């Protein structure tokens, strides 16, 4: 994974700063999705764009933005003209050209016109939510695109000449066999994207799937999921995609910097309803409601809810929780230096136990999860939280 670390250091020798924009519009709601989204209306989009402009003005931009990520919702659903307007707003606060600019798109709404607008604005990376190549499974997820649309969209994206292209896939879908999933991965590899994200279906509260789960219409099978994870890792490694996080794989030089920077506990500003920030010593998320977000902005406030101080100890804890999810792991020495008062003795004891049980590997300054440990990243994370919940002894 050294290419990722060094590349990031080159890109932001100082302190990288991310900019996330949440574009909350979706044509329909997918059964698995718990992200904030609403139906697009001409008026809604107008007000949203005005809101982003207002919100960006309320941020004190201390340094140039390194990476941009538009997520949603479906940013690719905006009209080409509106994509350009949003890009203008973003660019006016970036202080130069970001090294990476990702935009999420759905296959059904990819058009040469939209792609051209994005390319012209400086977007470098397209992330496309394919999810599956199997029509029956797509339907089961409530997705609105067909297999043919995926291929057409991918051709358009490639033709537009973006530096990096990602395909999102989902596995452990109800009724999906291990063979069907291997076929989906193979099909994605055949298209030769630069980056592949594979997501195990997660049952989030307030989704249609969660309802099915609680009604017993679908069942969880952790053993099956674990096998799918392992098969995926092997299959993608074989195909030349290096894993750099639980669900993310890239060809050399194509890891998503924006995400890496959030997992490394750098700083980012989130704009738009439900956008989350970690910036200038605090973290929090905007209210997940377009109208309320606009209302608060109208009063000249950022619409952040549950804003908390991002203390060094908190950041060290999260650097461990999220860092361990990455294959590069987490640099313990760096964090020890940044936050000497964290309960490192507890952390060391935990890591020693995890090492002994084959869940982690500590080599030099770096701690990372083994393959088995990576499948248990949440449990390890909860243990890290537990270790940090012990109050350090403060000398009187």
């Amino acid at each position, binding site marked *: 994974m050294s290419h990722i670390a060094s590349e990031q250091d080159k890109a932001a020798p100082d302190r990288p700063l*991310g900019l*996330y924009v*949440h574009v909350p519009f979706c044509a329909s709601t997918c059964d698995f999705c718990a*992200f904030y989204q609403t139906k697009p209306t001409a008026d809604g989009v107008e007000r949203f764009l005005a809101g982003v402009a207002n919100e960006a003005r309320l941020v004190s931009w201390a340094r140039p933005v390194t990476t941009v990520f538009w*997520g949603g919702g479906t940013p690719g659903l905006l009209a080409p003209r509106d994509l350009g307007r949003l890009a203008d707003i973003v660019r006016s606060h970036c202080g130069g050209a970001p090294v990476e600019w990702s935009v999420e798109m759905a296959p059904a709404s990819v058009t040469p016109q939209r792609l051209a607008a994005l390319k012209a604005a400086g977007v470098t990376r397209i992330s496309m939510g394919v999810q599956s190549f199997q029509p029956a499974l797509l339907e089961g997820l409530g997705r609105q695109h067909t297999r043919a649309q995926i291929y057409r969209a991918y051709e358009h994206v490639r033709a537009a000449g973006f530096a990096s292209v990602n395909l999102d896939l989902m596995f452990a879908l109800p009724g999906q066999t291990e063979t069907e999933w291997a076929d989906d991965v193979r099909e994605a590899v055949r298209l030769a994207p630069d980056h592949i994200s*594979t*997501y*195990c*279906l*997660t049952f989030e509260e307030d989704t249609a799937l969660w309802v099915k789960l609680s009604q017993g219409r679908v069942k969880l099978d*952790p*053993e099956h*999921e*674990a096998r799918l*994870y392992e098969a995926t890792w092997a299959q993608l490694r074989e195909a030349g995609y290096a894993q750099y996080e*639980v*669900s993310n794989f890239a060809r050399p030089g194509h890891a998503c910097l924006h*995400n890496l920077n*959030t*997992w490394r506990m750098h700083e*980012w500003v*989130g704009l738009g309803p*439900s*956008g*989350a*920030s*970690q910036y200038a010593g605090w*973290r*929090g*998320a905007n209210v997940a409601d377009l109208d309320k977000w606009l209302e608060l902005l109208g009063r000249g406030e950022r619409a952040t809810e*549950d804003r*908390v101080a991002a203390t060094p100890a908190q950041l060290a804890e*999260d650097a461990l*929780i*999220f860092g361990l*999810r990455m294959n590069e792991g987490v640099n313990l020495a760096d964090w020890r230096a940044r936050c000497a008062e964290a309960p490192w003795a507890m952390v060391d004891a935990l890591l020693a*136990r995890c090492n002994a*049980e084959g*869940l982690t590997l500590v080599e030099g300054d770096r701690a990372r999860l083994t393959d088995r440990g*990576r*499948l*248990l*990243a*949440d*449990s*390890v*994370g*909860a*243990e890290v*939280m*537990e270790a940090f*919940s012990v109050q350090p002894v403060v000398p009187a």
Partner: protein
Amino acid sequence: MPLTKYTRNFCIIAHVDHGKTTLSDRILEHTNTVAMRVMTDQHLDSMDLEKERGITIKSHPVTMTYRAKDGHDYKLNLMDTPGHVDFSYEVSRSLAACEGAVLLIDAAQGVEAQTVANAHLAFAQKLKVIPVINKIDLPSANLELCTRQLEDILSIPAEEAILASGKAGIGIEDILEAVVNRVPPPRWATYPQLRCLVFDSLYDSYRGCIAYVRVFSGTIKANDQMMLMSNGQKADVKEVGVFMPKMTKIASLGAGDVGYIVSSIKNTSDVKTGDTITLAARPATEMLPGYKEVRPMVFCGLYPLESDDYEKLKAALGRLRLNDAAFVYSSESSLALGFGFRCGFLGLLHMEIIQERIRREHDVDIISTYPSVIYHVIKHGGEKIDVDNPVNMPDPGTIEEIREPTIRASIILPNDSMGDILALIMEKRGVCEHTDTLDQNRVMLRCVLPLNEILVDFNDRLKSITHGYGSMDYELGDYIASDLVKMDIMINGDPVDAFSCIVHREKADAKGRQLCEKLAKIIPPQMFKVAIQAAIGGKIIARDNVREMRKDVTSKCYGGDISRKRKLLDKQKEGKKKMKQIGKVSIPPDAFIKVLQND
């Protein structure tokens, strides 16, 4: 002429389901003791549980008036006795309050284990036994067999048997006439001082302890000062009365009477069954015979399923204890189960009944640990200690010998189950000492078994092997030295107290393996390796591993929303706090309960 000439005190004894309660009801009806309009089925068994199980737990004496064929009015006191071996001391005290016993035999079932046990108790109290073959209207009634069994097994002349049916009201008059003519008038009536036998007691929240008594000699009335002869405790008599069957106040109780005494004593535990009440001013010099202190024989831990219910459980135990001096409890705490109580019972049925009453009448969900008996442990140097909780077993290195209680059981079973039952007895470390042929189809075994072996499933297996036809009764036997060991169950090396048990050395391996396997299966998959081991004095005899957790990872951690992910993990961490910590292992509290419940 003595006042007692027209008084008869008798009881009805029978095996479960042989129709005792129905017959009692017919007798009450016949003597117009209970007006027809208030007559509900099974008048004497008033507790729900008693009705449901067809057993009597509390005494329900009743005084009736019967005009016999000789033209005289007789005062008949019917004692409804507890009908189970757990309460054999209570039964013996109820019998001691009588001069006669009606022995019921189900015409279709014949003599059963409890029939024999109860008949022997009655003989031991020198009661006149009146055999009654009940349910003769059943198509499957076999009178010839019943009369032969009476003679062969109980040595009662067949011609003494009365044919009856409680259900159809047949033979009721004959039974009443037999009571009048065959049962002798009250004994020991001429003793110079007051002597009342306490055969039961009841707690009343307004009046305190109400003693149920049979007066043998003298008279007692309100404002007397009474004395309990076992300990010399004195109290003021506030009220005396009889059971009609409702408690009815009267001026005084005299020789031969059965009734109740309300005194200044508040707690039932101060008025012990079998004690003799006399007058403080002119005390008797000898107690009535047969008094002994009742000690619990079977122990277990009772814990609330919800720890919030601890106070509720405590209150429930307190209230049950008020009415049941034989039931004892003290608080204890368990690593695995939290705060609860160590409880002592007379026997298995007693334990079951108390647990059931806690659940039903007091609405507390409880879990019980493995039942245990009292072991006598002789240490090197001769010191002897009683151990009723495996946790208190001393270090094996200090023990010279462990002695365990036995029972002498009578088991009646169909011939064709003989092989399987003998195998069961052997499996339970029992010895069969005697075999009697009852009739063409049935035999009676007399055997000695360790009490701790019959605690869990002996009766159930007896019933299942014999397709419900087998029956057992037992009395306590001697303590015998046995090769017993304390087995601990450990999770990653830390013992789980609730699963410690005392077992015979030869059975330890199998039991250890079974427990380890069960726990390993029930404890949910763990992130770290968790070993479940069974150990005797530090030596591991069985082991299993909890399944390792395979997958617990959230796939997508995006949009920079760290807080959202933290909340998820926080939930997980908080969930862990609700678990029982055994060393470093977090185990859901219900895992232990499931293992105990699965038995």
